[in-house]
């Protein structure tokens, strides 16, 4: 059994209020896409409130920024969901819903299997990626790092 799992965080800045007509397309996709994630091969965990999603969690000073935090069995599992499922079709609208961010908006890192990352930790990983570029502690799909070898500590 694998000793590590992959954590991912991505953040997005809303262009318009979440309850407005501009975001209706996004809001309509929340439930089906989250259900798709929950049933996807290799899905382990995702951040959510009692609403069943994480849209109410606004951990940044800029409260337009939403956070998406999840854990997956492997990089391939996460990649399969993000880029090779219906999720891909939803992401093509990303610029209608969210402003482009200059700083890294997605970070990946390995966690010991069974560990759940915190939002505070996720923010640190994004900052680390912005500061140091891709490293084993915070990387991207384009510059991935392999699962650490050996037993988890």
């Amino acid at each position: 059994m694998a000793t590590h799992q992959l954590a991912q965080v991505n953040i997005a800045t809303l262009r318009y209020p979440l309850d407005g007509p501009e975001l209706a397309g996004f809001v309509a996709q929340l439930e089906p896409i989250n259900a798709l994630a929950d049933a996807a091969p290799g899905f382990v965990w995702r951040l959510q409130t009692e609403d069943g999603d994480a849209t109410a969690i606004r951990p940044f000073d800029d409260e337009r920024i939403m956070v998406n935090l999840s854990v997956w069995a492997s990089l391939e599992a996460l990649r399969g969901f993000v880029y090779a499922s219906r999720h891909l079709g939803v992401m093509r609208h990303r610029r209608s819903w969210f402003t482009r961010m200059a700083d890294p908006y997605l970070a990946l890192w390995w966690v010991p299997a069974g560990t759940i990352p915190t939002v505070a930790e996720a923010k640190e990983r994004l900052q680390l990626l912005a500061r140091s570029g891709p490293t084993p502690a915070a990387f991207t799909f384009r510059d991935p790092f392999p699962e650490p070898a050996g037993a988890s500590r």
Partner: protein
Amino acid sequence: MAAMDGAPTDRDLAAIGLLQDPVRRALYEHVVAAGGEVSRNQAAEAAAVGRGLAAFHLDKLVEAGLLEATFRRLGERRGPGAGRPAKLYRRAAGEVAASLPPRTYETAAHLLAEAVEQTGADLELQAAARRAGVRAGRRQPREGGPAVERLLAARGYEPYRDGAALRLRNCPFANLSGEFPVLVCAMNLSLIEGLLEGLGAPERAVMEPAPGRCCVAIISKDNQD
């Protein structure tokens, strides 16, 4: 065989030269159109040549990097009496490309995609792709069979029927979509939407990603899936 980012290599030119032979060309096209693994016998039958000759040419195509060969036992039987495993052929994953004079559009495409990604110009790219699709669709001659399939085939998508849907075996932007999936797959969907609009076709294009094919499928307009 990397993507085209310089002058053609000897290996690329040799691979393309191999396809001049009509038998080899027929065998290659049969394997590609089958979309999976093909046995020697199947390929020989399709190209109307003997099994020995087919095997010779198929192995030449493997040597050149155009096909890949695997060995697999086809029947249920195991152990003594099961026979030797069959040699099966499928299209190789790598690309063969040559342009004379050398043209390195691949390099340009990656740089442009990087810049579009950084500036967040997804919607502008989708609009440009849609316009280009509409223009190409309007130019397509109307005679000579189903226009949608012919146009997609001519543009390298390798369309095939799958029930009511038309699916696309080949992603013409594979390297680029691998690196910038959101950007490039959305561009491709807009392009195909434009092609359908330009053709005046009643179908619509939808994103249905699956491994090993283009993520766009063409379905009839009343299908809500």
